[in-house]
């Protein structure tokens, strides 16, 4: 008798994919908003070349987020667009989910090799500093204490930037 052994098609993880996609959208839009207003982020991206593109993605290809520096600010370019100068890759959707639901800090994610960087490492360091500032806007302090080694300072006037990101940046992409 012939043993039957068929091809197996693994299912999908629709919920986790959706969460990660949503977070990418939020991140992309808030990168744009924050790069217009936050002086620390502005100072970081001053050193990047015009047209510099970075991408965050989940292995193998999606979900993803592409952001480009144009006319001195960061512009969210959606999830399609092939290659970038710098790519941050989550090795699995589970790792991305852990990070995006603040169950695993970004620095721990790097330390556990859940995330890897492909490209110029010194640019990646600059990008991570921007990301830390951004997380400070997006999450309350008690979460930041958990996910960052030392959360960046948040003087009172930055609350206006936070309000802008929440009310205009994320919902309308302004």
């Amino acid at each position, binding site marked *: 008798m012939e043993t039957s052994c068929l091809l197996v098609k693994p299912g999908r993880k629709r919920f986790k994919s959706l969460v990660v996609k949503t977070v990418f959208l939020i991140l992309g839009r808030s990168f744009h908003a924050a790069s217009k207003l936050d002086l620390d982020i502005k100072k970081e991206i001053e050193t990047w070349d015009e047209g510099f593109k970075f991408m965050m993605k989940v292995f193998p290809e999606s979900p993803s987020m592409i952001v480009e520096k144009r006319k001195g600010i960061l512009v969210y370019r959606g999830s399609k667009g092939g290659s970038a100068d710098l790519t941050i890759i989550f090795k699995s959707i589970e790792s991305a989910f852990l990070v995006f639901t603040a169950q695993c800090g970004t620095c721990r994610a*790097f*330390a*556990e090799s859940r995330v890897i960087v492909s*490209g110029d490492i010194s640019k990646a*360091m600059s990008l991570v500093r921007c990301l830390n500032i951004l997380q400070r806007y997006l999450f309350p302090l008690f979460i930041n204490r958990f996910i960052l080694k030392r959360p960046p300072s948040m003087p009172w006037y930055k609350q206006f930037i936070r309000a802008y990101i929440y009310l205009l940046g994320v919902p309308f992409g302004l």
Partner: protein
Amino acid sequence: MLPSYYEFYNPVKIISGEKALDNLPYELNRLQVTRPLIITDKGVTDAGLVKTVIRAFAESGIILGGVYDDVPSDSSVTVVNDIAGVFRRNECDGLIAVGGGSPIDTAKAVNILVSEEGDNLFQFAGHDVLRRPLKPLVVIPTTAGTGSEVTYVAVIADPSRKVKMSFTSAYLYPRLAVLDPRMTLSIPPGITAATGMDALSHAMEAVTCLQKNPISDALAMASIDLIGKNLLKVVAHGRDEEARLAMSNAACLAGAAFSNSMVGLVHSLGHAAGGVAGVPHGVAMSIFLPYVFDYNMEKTAPDLARLLLPFGGPEEYANTPPAHRARRTIELIRALRQSLYDLCQLPRTLKEAEVSRDKLEAIARTAINDGSLTFNPVEVTYDDALLLLREAYD
């Protein structure tokens, strides 16, 4: 404590000990290499070490594809291209790096060009850019420090653009490391001390940095034990074969540990001080170690305390009350630096290393863009880095 998740990888075969070198032809045969190219520098040739390597091939039937011994102390793109040309012309099929960090890094980069069949090294720069296994690379270290024989990193300077490109990929691991005590006997005391402190910094950062794991820990602790017992010995008595082999093993263990646990702030500052002010890597490690450990104390006290056992020995450990062990480890590092200063004037401060004070800002700026900072347990901003550099100045 186990990390919630970790990865460990090291595919390098290690052969170590008396006449290890003489088994190289057999190992090359296993790797199906019939015409290896030797890459080394003038210092190694002048010390007669290349002759020793060539001697090992007598009666082996293997013909060497050439000896390139013009690698400068800072490996550069031009040299890499030059050697790749030799490799192709002589139809070589494997590489043997003999030397310290520079010939090893150069050989790794040559391997990228000849295996990927490219001529523009720049297109392979960065992390994880390589896509296929490279040709077999054998490393014979002639210093005990960098651990490059078991790491997957190469750093190559591009003088025309005044930058250092780094290449990291699992494919860059050598296939074989040969630790033969004959290869390190003639290193002068100053370099022995500096490279030994590099190895110590690898092992100690491996135990204290964020990507540590049980396997890297075990390797690092074994390395520190060997360094604690042998570093002063080899600096004082360079011809002590047993101590030399112990230090080569320590450097190798530390290399395997840190390429998995990664290193932290000691190295971020060290890379920057090297790039901006030309401080030799090992010297920089020796200078920064105690200052950085003071800085990291809040997060790493328990790990620093554990270091006291291999570093100071069981009696020292038992006689120090648990609450003082972390501090004691740092005191012993300072004492070791002092002994090395007495033996061979190894610099203890940036001033002694002839760094001018006006370079500190530039060093701090470079340090915070160094990838190793990601793995330091405590956050470091530009201001923090500058403060630390000022402390380490005089």
